[in-house]
């Protein structure tokens, strides 16, 4: 029966797969086919089994992650049970989530060559392959660049080039755009579309990017609880708000973009008139400049006021200066020129530890801060530095966990929580310190639509209780929905400073 199968096709028929640890997502009755040259998106909430499904296709499951496997998978007409991962990888290229751990070469050129040299391809041919692959991903001229010095988007392209260099028939990508700005995201999808059109490569990609998925893919497969729950045309899925939200997918409002634009006023003056009467300035940057050690001018003469109780979104491309600016607020970086005033005081002589009592900062990756063996201890860590009694600490931990909705988890080990839960834990551990100003860097990275909405609701509630909130985000839609003001950074400067009319109106009513 398999003789009829073409190269470049996928046929999955898995009755069951469970990881050895028994914790991670289990697959059950998973069936689907993909034709040669199709561009298919894989969507669904976090924990639905997307990564697990993708790892079936080049045999990582069941060869690398052994577990309890019952079923057959044909990738490129090869039964994955009969071939080693290394052999399958010549035909089925897999780009995994974290680009950092997929780059082996010290230079771009060496990295692209890693795959083909493992396949013992002739040296002269490898030289051609390097140029071709870099050309496809738009990294021409990067050959001799040091790979660790590339930006996030460039690294992502490099990992794709590294896989393309092996000339696979099927290309599988696991959330390759989660850390990119909207422009970078679109570039990746465009590049994949080009591969499908010009080289007839089969592309199977997972992610939460509703807009790009609708624009570029031929078909969407939706997973929930380890099985396929929907399979069809992108337009149908995204236009059906109820259906999409049911599976944790962001629906697309038809005219959301135009609507969004009309809600904004491009007048900075307005903010002063509207707010300065009653509101107190809590953060003020005066002629703020910052330069990194490598000489990159990350902030150029920033003048900015943020008022008490505001909910501000900082937007802009990767490298525009959003994070560099936020790190000035809690003293992680000190201005090279100019001053930053918090509550009217110059903070140039205050350490981050001192400032942490007033200014909370939640980083993008919760795993960079979690180190305790229970959820409770993790939240308590920051409190131990404040002079509080044991009872006060206990109360604050309880309140913070309640606030983010983790109160029944306080004895659990943080690393058994899902990614969304760990993000909430990171927020709780800062909330417990009761900061007056809270900075949250990319609160929704890699989260599904439900997780994103829940996180935004938490932030909204905090803000309504009086905390000044500053969030760095790539998601303009969320920024418009929740924040009072949107500040756009570009090339180290404040490019625009919008007040969000819709929110102001709500406040007046």
């Amino acid at each position, binding site marked *: 029966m398999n003789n009829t199968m073409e190269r470049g096709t996928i046929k999955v028929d898995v009755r069951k797969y469970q990881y050895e640890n028994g914790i991670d997502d289990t697959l059950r009755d998973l069936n689907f086919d993909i034709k040669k040259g199709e561009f298919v998106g894989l969507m669904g909430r976090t924990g639905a089994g997307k990564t697990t499904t993708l790892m079936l296709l080049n045999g990582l499951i069941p060869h690398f992650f052994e577990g309890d496997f019952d079923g057959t998978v044909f990738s490129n007409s090869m039964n994955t049970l009969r071939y080693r991962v*290394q052999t399958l*990888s010549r035909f089925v290229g897999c780009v995994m989530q974290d680009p950092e751990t997929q780059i082996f070469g*010290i230079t771009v050129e060496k990295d692209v060559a890693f795959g083909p*040299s493992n396949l013992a391809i002739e040296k002269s041919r*490898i030289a051609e392959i390097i140029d071709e692959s870099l050309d496809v991903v738009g990294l021409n001229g990067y050959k001799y660049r040091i790979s660790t010095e590339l930006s996030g988007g460039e690294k992502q392209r490099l990992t794709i080039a590294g896989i393309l260099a092996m000339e696979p028939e099927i290309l599988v990508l696991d959330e390759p755009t989660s850390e990119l700005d909207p422009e970078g995201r679109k570039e990746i999808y465009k590049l994949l579309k080009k591969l499908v059109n010009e080289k007839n490569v089969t592309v199977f990609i997972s992610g939460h990017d509703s807009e790009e998925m609708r624009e570029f893919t031929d078909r969407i497969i939706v997973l929930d609880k380890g099985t396929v729950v929907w399979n069809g045309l992108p337009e149908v899925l995204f236009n059906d708000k109820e259906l999409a939200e049911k599976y944790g997918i962001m629906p697309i409002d038809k005219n959301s973009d135009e609507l969004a634009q009309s809600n904004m006023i491009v007048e900075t003056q307005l903010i002063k008139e509207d707010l300065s009467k009653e509101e107190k300035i809590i953060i003020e940057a005066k002629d703020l400049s910052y330069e990194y050690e490598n000489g990159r001018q990350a902030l150029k003469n920033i003048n900015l006021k943020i008022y008490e109780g505001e909910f501000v979104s900082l937007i802009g491309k990767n490298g525009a200066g959003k994070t560099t600016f936020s790190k000035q607020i809690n003293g992680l970086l000190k201005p090279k020129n100019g001053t930053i005033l918090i509550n009217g005081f110059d903070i140039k002589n205050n350490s981050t530890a001192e400032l942490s009592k007033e200014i909370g900062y939640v*980083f993008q990756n919760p795993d960079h801060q979690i*180190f305790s063996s229970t959820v409770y201890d993790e939240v308590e860590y*920051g409190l131990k*530095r404040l002079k509080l009694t044991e009872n006060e600490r206990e109360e604050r931990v309880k309140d913070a966990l309640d606030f983010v909705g983790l109160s029944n988890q306080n004895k659990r080990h943080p690393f058994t929580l899902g990614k969304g839960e760990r993000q909430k834990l990171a927020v709780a551990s800062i909330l417990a310190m009761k900061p007056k100003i809270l900075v949250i860097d990319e609160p929704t990275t890699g989260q599904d639509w439900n997780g994103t909405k829940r996180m935004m609701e938490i932030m909204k509630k905090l803000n309504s209780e009086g905390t000044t909130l500053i969030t760095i985000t790539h998601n303009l839609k969320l920024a418009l929905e929740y924040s009072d003001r949107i500040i756009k950074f570009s090339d180290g400067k404040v490019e625009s400073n919008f007040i969000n009319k819709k929110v102001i109106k709500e406040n007046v009513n």
Partner: protein
Amino acid sequence: MLIEYYPQGSFIHRLDVRTKILGFFVITAASFCFENPLINFLIIILLWFMLSSMNSPMSKVYGIIKSLLPIFLIMLIITGFTYPASKFGYEENKRIIFSLLPNNGMPLTTGGLYYGLTLVLRIFVMVFASSIITFSTSIEDILQFLKKIKMPHQLAFVIATGIRFIPTMQAKSEMIREAQMARGAEFGKGGIVKKIKSYIPVLIPMIVDSIRMSDNLAIAMLNRGFGSMKNTTNLTEIKMKSIDYLICVITLVLLMIVLYAKSKNIGAL
């Protein structure tokens, strides 16, 4: 690493890694053959010329030398006082400058001082000579050399990947430090126990992250076909050019001269 590769197109940069390593051994051997500080000083001048011809960042080299200064001083004093005069062939080297103890006990001899100076200069030679290699040779060339001396491919791969990940791990530890500082962590304050304890919030996420990364790396290696073939393609084949052979011959002739001189007791104290 203390010293890293500085890509420049100098004559020494273009030499084969093997030529450079042979040169390194011959120069160190010469330095060890001669006890006379004057000859060692001449070797250093030669090396200094080589370093400057390569446009090397000399401040890095001086930085290392500077950190070694106290050791140099101790070496000079100890050898100066402890070398018995009878060890030296030449009369003028047996001269005692003064003695620490009565009856010529613990004498400071001219020869002892010279010998101490030679020991110090030998360290200079090694710092200079190894800097020449590291400044002028890329990691790839060094790995090729390791392969040529039959180091297993896997081991060479581990070394290369390790080097590739040094900046990544530095960046990770910086991110973790910042995340903990934002929660009020202060590092390296208080007594020794407190000091060590203060780093736990950095160490644990670092370890957890490394384990996760190593798993991901293993997957990524499989995805790139690592181990699918017995042989892999050698991308940069290091090649001895005629200039390399010429330099090697000259170097070996120099080695002969050094050994001959040594047998004639030239350069002894």
